[in-house]
């Protein structure tokens, strides 16, 4: 066991412990780390935007290459701030917003339906699976489970027909259980994730900080 002498490792270890201390009780160490984290995130975002967004456009593209259309984009971007400057000029901010929304919709509509269509097509399943002339009982069972749970889940969110109708009511009831199974799986995986995160920190504290050989 050889405790780390690297100051960076010590900072990481102590801030990790400070964050976990919240589980026991809210305290000043946790609040200090929380504020430092928030401040660093904001500072990082600002520097990143300046360094990778604004500077390269101005220095490399506009001044270096003479790509003047970027000036138009810059002016449009600045118009966003007119809503902060004065109510008299705030209407100008609608131009960049409109442009951004229009561009976004067009960009998305060009390709986005395709992935959903593929999944929709996949939901059309054979309910009698035969492979190489042999009936596949387990695969057939799986297909039935899939189709029944798909239809009953959809019926749970289907409000065009009143849920007083016996068929819709029964179907929606089963659909509710299907949703619960799905949410249960998501919860189980979330627990896996949280424990993995804790184990990652634990490994850092034990190996990198305290120097245990595991």
């Amino acid at each position, binding site marked *: 066991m050889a405790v780390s002498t690297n100051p960076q490792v010590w900072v990481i270890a102590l801030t990790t412990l400070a964050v976990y201390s919240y589980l026991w009780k809210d305290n000043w160490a946790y609040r200090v780390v929380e504020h430092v984290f928030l401040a660093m995130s904001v500072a990082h975002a600002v520097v990143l935007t300046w360094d990778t967004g604004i500077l390269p456009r101005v220095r490399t593209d506009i001044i270096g290459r003479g790509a003047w259309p970027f000036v138009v984009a810059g002016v449009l971007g600045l118009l966003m701030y007119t809503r902060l400057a004065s109510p008299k000029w705030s209407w100008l901010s609608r131009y960049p917003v409109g442009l951004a929304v229009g561009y976004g919709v067009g*960009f998305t509509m060009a390709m986005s339906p395709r992935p959903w269509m*593929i999944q929709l097509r996949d939901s059309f399943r054979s309910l009698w699976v035969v492979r190489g002339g042999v009936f596949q009982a387990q695969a057939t069972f799986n297909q039935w489970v899939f189709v029944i749970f798909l239809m009953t889940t959809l019926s749970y969110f289907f409000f065009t027909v009143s849920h007083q109708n016996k068929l819709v009511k029964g179907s929606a009831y089963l659909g509710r259980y299907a949703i619960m199974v799905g949410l249960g799986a998501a919860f189980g995986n979330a627990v896996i994730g949280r424990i*993995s995160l804790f184990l990652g920190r634990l490994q850092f504290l034990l190996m990198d900080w305290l120097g245990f050989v595991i």
Partner: protein
Amino acid sequence: MSFWERFEGMDPRYMYVFLALALLIPVFRPVGMPIAIDHAFTQPMFDWIERELRPDSLLILDTAYSPGAAAELDPQLAAIFRHLMRRGHKVVLISQWELGARLGTTVVRRVADAVGAEYGVDWVSVGWREGGLPWMRSLQDDFWAGMGGVDIDGVPFERLPLMQRLRAFRPGQVDGIICFVTGSPGAPTYITWFPEIRLHLGATAVMVPGLTPQLVAGQTRSLLTGLRGAAEYEVLIGEPGRAVKLMDAQSLGHLIIMALIILSNIGYAIRTRQGAT
């Protein structure tokens, strides 16, 4: 006060301490519980790299995650990169998340040093660029222009031999994509805009239920599940590492949580019945 009433009123902080201590024991003394391979989620990734990819293939690895997901995705990335290098493939590391670029490069550099992979020849990290989806789309036309012609550390592509093979992010130049995802942007970028290139995913466990329909529909060919997926992959390539070591603790943690859920429900049922009578 009955046992169940005391159990229900227990301070949750004791549970945290108990869980933390319980997880510590298997970290120090792993039991070596068997790790079964998931044939629908994990095995296709291994088979693809091991058997289907032609030699000297060029793959894009996207580290679309932040430090919060590193505990789950770093071991996946390390195991897969190790496998790719062993099979003689080439890797270009990119990231849709700015923090993922540096995280992924750190992990890959460590593995590359261990296996003797040469930077610029066997792998290159091009990093992250501002611009979101339009930036990714621009790489389909001109990868060099979209990346500004430099790697993550500002080294010009002209000085990196591997980059001569990658002029556009298109089939024919790119043989596959492996994306490590923890949210958005992530898998939808490739599913929507790069459907002609084969996609494989490594995901945090919490993402998996949402991504499973895409696996079933064939939009992604495999899906590694968090630390568990990394452990399975380490077993598949025959090099147990960090993920395998932690799986015992992971399993014990689950057992404890399941036991607590069952006990809580028994207590609830008993209390409800007593209330009814």
